[in-house]
């Protein structure tokens, strides 16, 4: 018990003293996670909008596939992307494996289904009368789309926050595609796994606390957004 308390106190001290190694790991995690969330939102929100609004053959099947991909294990994505980025893979010549870009690619694949499906759900809840109202007021297609996105903004923002929460806490992709290189591709989760292997719990606990704080912050944002949506 003393060991746990000591580790916990040391971890708090690490956070308080803004330990350089700790800050670097947090920085990499936020950079990689933020970038992949941004890219996935750029793809997933328009895709979700398109799927929600258009009628096309295979729409139901596509939504089912996207729903299935919500439960995609990170190691499966890691393995899949690894096959493409490894030296013998199709994109091997780009030398992307064990870089932050590789982690971003994997994480984008992981969260695009999240952003897309939750955007579909948010847009589908908006009554068709909004589209007709925007059109009759003289809006063009893009302006009409913007009206609908604005009406569904709380749902869409929730999807982005959920996606960020997923990437910041994942370990499989970061480990398999990033390689856990110190100061370069070491994220909070991979650092925690490494420290655990080494039997060094202080940094692990400190990172765990930071991760929990980020998760808490993400959930607070989500709650605020959901609360506003009900107003």
């Amino acid at each position, binding site marked *: 018990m003393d060991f746990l308390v000591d580790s916990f106190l040391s971890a708090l001290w690490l956070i308080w003293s803004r330990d350089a190694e700790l800050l670097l790991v947090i920085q990499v995690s936020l950079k990689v996670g933020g970038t992949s969330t941004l890219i996935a939102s750029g793809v997933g929100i328009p895709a979700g909008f398109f799927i929600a609004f258009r009628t096309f053959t295979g729409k139901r099947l596509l939504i089912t596939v996207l729903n299935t991909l919500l439960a995609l294990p990170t190691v499966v994505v890691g393995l899949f992307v690894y096959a493409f980025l490894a030296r013998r893979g199709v994109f091997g010549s780009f030398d992307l494996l064990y870089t932050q870009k590789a982690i971003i690619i994997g994480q984008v694949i992981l969260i695009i289904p999240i952003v897309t499906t939750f955007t579909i759900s948010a847009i589908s809840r908006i*009554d068709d009368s909004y589209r007709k109202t925007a*059109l*009759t*007021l*003289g809006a063009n297609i893009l302006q009409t789309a913007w*009206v609908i996105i604005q009406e569904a903004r709380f749902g869409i923002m929730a999807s982005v926050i959920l996606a960020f929460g997923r990437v910041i806490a994942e370990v499989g992709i970061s480990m398999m595609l990033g390689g856990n290189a110190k100061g370069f591709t070491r994220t909070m989760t991979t650092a925690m796994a490494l420290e655990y292997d080494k039997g060094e719990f202080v940094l692990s606990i400190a990172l765990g606390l930071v991760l929990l704080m980020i998760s808490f912050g993400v959930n607070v944002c989500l709650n605020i957004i959901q609360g506003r949506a009900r107003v």
Partner: protein
Amino acid sequence: MLYELKNLKKAYGQRTVLDLDRLCLEENKILALLGPNGAGKTTLLEILAFLDRPNTGAIWFDSKRVNFTLGNLMTLRKEVVLVQQQPILFSTTVFKNVEFPLKIRNIPKAKRGRIVEDLLSLVGMEMFRDAIAHKLSGGETQRVAIARALACSPKVILMDEPTASVDVENQITIERIIREINREKRISVIFTTHNLIQASRLADETVFLYEGRVAQSIYENIFSGQIEVDEKGDKFCLLQNGLKLHTHSQKVGSTRISIDPNTLRISKPTDDLPERNTFKGALIQLSSEQGRIRALVDVGIPLSVLIPKEEFEDLQLSVDQTVYLTCPEEGVEVF
């Protein structure tokens, strides 16, 4: 001519909701599209607003044939605006809602502000400029929606049952706004209603729609029923409330009937045996309408009756009075 529609048909699956041979709607007038639920009023309004396209037929707007290509529709939509029955206000302030059409038309910000203030004042909503639009009542929402529609500077405003879900006070205000925008801004107004009194009070012209077609007569007192033959061989229409109405119709089975309010006769109860198609009922409403009196008599179903003023004075009728209502067979039209 503002609108001219020829051989226009609109169907959803197997169900034809509009089937108009020819319909002309004139400019700078207030036009009422009158008809019961399911008559095709809303579908017609959406076609007139260029939000929906007919399956067949042609439309001329402002004497030009309408080409239903996306680019052309967008241009036409700038001249016509539809205010829906349950208007949708965007989830922002009242000011920003009214500002929206001006913003997408690239009107400078300072000018936008002035126009919005003027329009809110016209509809009596200037006090609500910073209010959250979704928190307004039904009548207030309708008034803001009208102000927003006016911000489009349209040639025509189409309104789908503008007073259907508002209280009497808002109804009066909305009717005043409709008159003002037509008389002062020279904007044509086409509105739907199933309230004949409102149509006659407000509109310069009225078009009656019934089951997707333009009806030539005043369709009022419309009911579903069953035409049967009694033991004497006489035909009667059995209405849903059990009322038996004798008819000359050749039809048998399920049908819909309309009773012309001009043919219905009110009399005071006497000891004499009432004649055929005479029912005892209570006079529940009286109102004045263009030199005549409209009476609503409850004979198990509410029937609207139009009486000349002199006859009304002779009868000395008052509300809650028990009366006889005679429905001549020639006044019953079977569809």
